[in-house]
């Protein structure tokens, strides 16, 4: 058992840290988040060409770096810590995972190298009902000859207004729940697709609405068996859930760090605020939460690695994802909220960054289900069964 970073993983983390400290400064974040696109295309280009980040867990045969999910989550953590504005999460943690899990070899060969080269992508599966499980899929897919025709609306799609490539879920008419779901991969500029930026409270993570009006795709767009894609989509969602929890840990850490730094500067009543015991105890509770959250994401990342390697612990994927998301969502919100409180008056000014973390805490909490959602998901496994009295 060696549940800690290897030398190589440490290096990857530290490299991400150093790069992001340079490029994802407070000023850079504020500039990028104020745009509708939501990121600096030049920076994305550097992330692709200099850092090879989109390639991270794409197998080498498709031009990727062939690294694991632990490395990916380590990078997500740093990106959360620096509030990175970039299409990385949508491209790598949503679309690339979807392709790795559900695409044919031909589809992988066609799209993964494009992603390595900087093509942006995302996953759209949620309708407007605010669900995150199979019920979320509302768009309808019908068969017309050799083609598939998709109509319906997607909502809350990360970077959906700007991504170049889409993976989308749709269901056969009249089906519900886990039945009848198919996945498709398609260029975002297919006829019949209109896309709208949805302005959001957290400006660092962009969301979009996608309206599909009889979007017609041939069989090459279908991923896997028609109507049978829920198991794959469920895995994709679990992998995405683990990755967003990594972002949350980074944010929770930085909420603590920036708060402690402020407390060590600020003097009231002739003393550093950091010397007040009630303040110290709040900071200690923040550290407890972030360390426990970190333990959760790295376990989940290891399980994700097992999943990609077909290991026996793969079966733990849904549980590990829900544990990580339930805990990290609450930890981040707690730390960012307490961070504002401990900053005092400046905590709710636009000038200080803690409010940006507070907003990202909320947007990542909601995305893919909040703690309550994931606890109920776990409760079904723990408590339900035919023998429940």
């Amino acid at each position, binding site marked *: 058992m060696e549940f800690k970073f290897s030398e190589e993983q440490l290096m990857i983390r530290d490299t991400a840290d150093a790069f992001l400290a340079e490029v994802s400064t407070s000023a850079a974040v504020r500039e990028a988040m104020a745009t509708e696109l939501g990121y600096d295309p030049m920076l994305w280009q550097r992330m692709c060409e200099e850092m090879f980040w989109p390639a991270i867990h794409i197998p080498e045969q498709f031009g990727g770096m062939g690294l694991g999910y632990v490395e990916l989550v380590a990078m997500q953590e740093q990106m959360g810590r620096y509030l990175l504005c970039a299409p990385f999460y949508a491209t790598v943690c949503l679309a690339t995972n979807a392709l790795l899990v559900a695409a044919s070899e031909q589809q992988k060969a066609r799209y993964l190298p494009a992603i390595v080269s900087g093509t942006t992508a995302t996953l759209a599966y949620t309708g407007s009902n*605010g669900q995150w499980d199979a019920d979320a899929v509302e768009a309808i897919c019908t068969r017309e000859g050799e083609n598939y025709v998709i109509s319906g609306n997607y*909502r809350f799609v990360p970077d959906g207004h700007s991504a170049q490539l889409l993976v989308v879920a749709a269901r056969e008419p009249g089906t519900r729940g886990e039945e009848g779901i198919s996945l498709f991969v398609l260029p975002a500029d297919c006829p019949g697709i209109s896309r709208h*930026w949805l302005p*959001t409270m*957290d400006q660092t993570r962009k969301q979009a609405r996608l309206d599909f009006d009889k979007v017609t795709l041939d069989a090459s767009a279908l991923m896997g068996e028609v109507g049978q894609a829920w198991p794959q989509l469920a895995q994709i969602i679990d992998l995405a859930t683990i990755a967003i929890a990594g972002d949350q840990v980074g944010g929770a850490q930085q909420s603590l760090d920036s708060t402690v730094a402020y407390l060590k500067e600020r003097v009231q009543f002739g003393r550093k605020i950091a010397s007040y015991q009630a303040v110290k105890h709040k900071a200690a509770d923040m550290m407890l939460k972030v360390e426990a959250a970190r333990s959760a994401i790295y376990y989940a990342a290891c399980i994700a690695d097992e999943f990609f390697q077909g290991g026996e612990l793969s079966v733990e994927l849904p549980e590990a994802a829900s544990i990580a998301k339930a805990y990290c969502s609450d930890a981040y919100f707690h730390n960012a*909220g307490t961070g504002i409180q401990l900053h005092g008056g400046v*905590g709710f000014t636009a000038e200080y960054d803690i409010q940006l973390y507070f907003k990202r805490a*909320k947007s990542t909490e*909601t995305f893919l289900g909040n703690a309550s959602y994931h606890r109920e998901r776990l409760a079904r496994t723990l408590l339900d069964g035919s023998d429940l009295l």
Partner: protein
Amino acid sequence: MKLRFSAQDEQFRAEVATWLEQNLGGEFEEIRGRGGPGDEHMLVEERKAWERKLHQGGWTCIGWPAEYGGRNATIEQQVIFNEEYARARGPGRMGHIGETLLGPTLIAFGSEGQKQRFLPPILRGEELWCQGYSEPSAGSDLANVKTRARFDEEAGRWLITGQKVWTSLAHESHYCFVIARVDPQSVGHRGLGFFLIAMNQPGVTVRPIEQLTGTCEFNEVFFDDAVCGPDDIVGAPGDGWKVAMGLLGFERGVSTLGQQMLFNNELDEIIRIARSNGAARDPVIRQRIADAHVGLRIMRFNSMRMLSGGTSDGSLQKEAMIYKLYWSTWHRNLGKLAMDVLGPESEILDSGPYGLSRMQSMYLFTRSDTIYGGTNQIQRNIIAERALGMPREPRG
């Protein structure tokens, strides 16, 4: 114990309600429900006009003595006025700092000349006031005032230099009351003065502070040899702290029931959303909505105790000491509840680039409730030290 207002008070309530119904319409329809927390800088001209309208009806400064133009209204009547005002969705009062803070202070501590000069325009809704207490290094530590006042013997006037912060409505105000250090050798609450300073002069600069909502309700105010007349200091030089603290004591909770009515509107709106989007079927949300309801009802009961003047045995009004900590924490939780009832839609703005919905704005602003006017930490210190007799925090 009696839960009800007297018949006389209920008659007063009817009078208030009728007047508001007849007057808060027409040109004033658009300011209904506006200008509250987070919206204080909006529709300023219209709300100024409303202040004058209120005065015409005799509804400004009702708690002031009749000799200064008030109605000598009892605590109960002031509570009732605030309740009815909130019920009618009256706009945020532009004149409230003059009416509820400065006015009573001048009546208690001011010279006859100050009363005659400053009270009538407040009463008429013509001169607006803002408050100059906090400074960058005097937040929780309110006595750590760095702003200086020196008397220019030659010109026979005070010159004020320093920086105040968290000043609401500074742009719109005609005057600011400021505590400033008259004795440069002094520290803490000694050696301060309480000054009445005109805002429209070269020595005063106002800079808005942008909030996490993207809006600017507060300001920094810079004084650079700002001029203050020799008669415009309240009390003697050195009495500033006594006057300032006396002022804080004039807020006797008469607005709490009105504030709670606004909270109740917010909770009703959350319930409406929950019923329409299905969140009302989520058992966890149900618990939290019920908890919010419990908390708000108890907030009202607690205010009723507070306004009834505590136990007849004259013991400390502990229910008043918890009030700020209680409501601010309750409201902050309500903000989170509103977002969780909205679910993923909570993220989506009404409009770009940063057009927050009413619920989103409320949610973000509630994070300041537990900070301004004495942080929750300071409130807990005060409760522990004054109500429970635990040792004071040492100064460094």
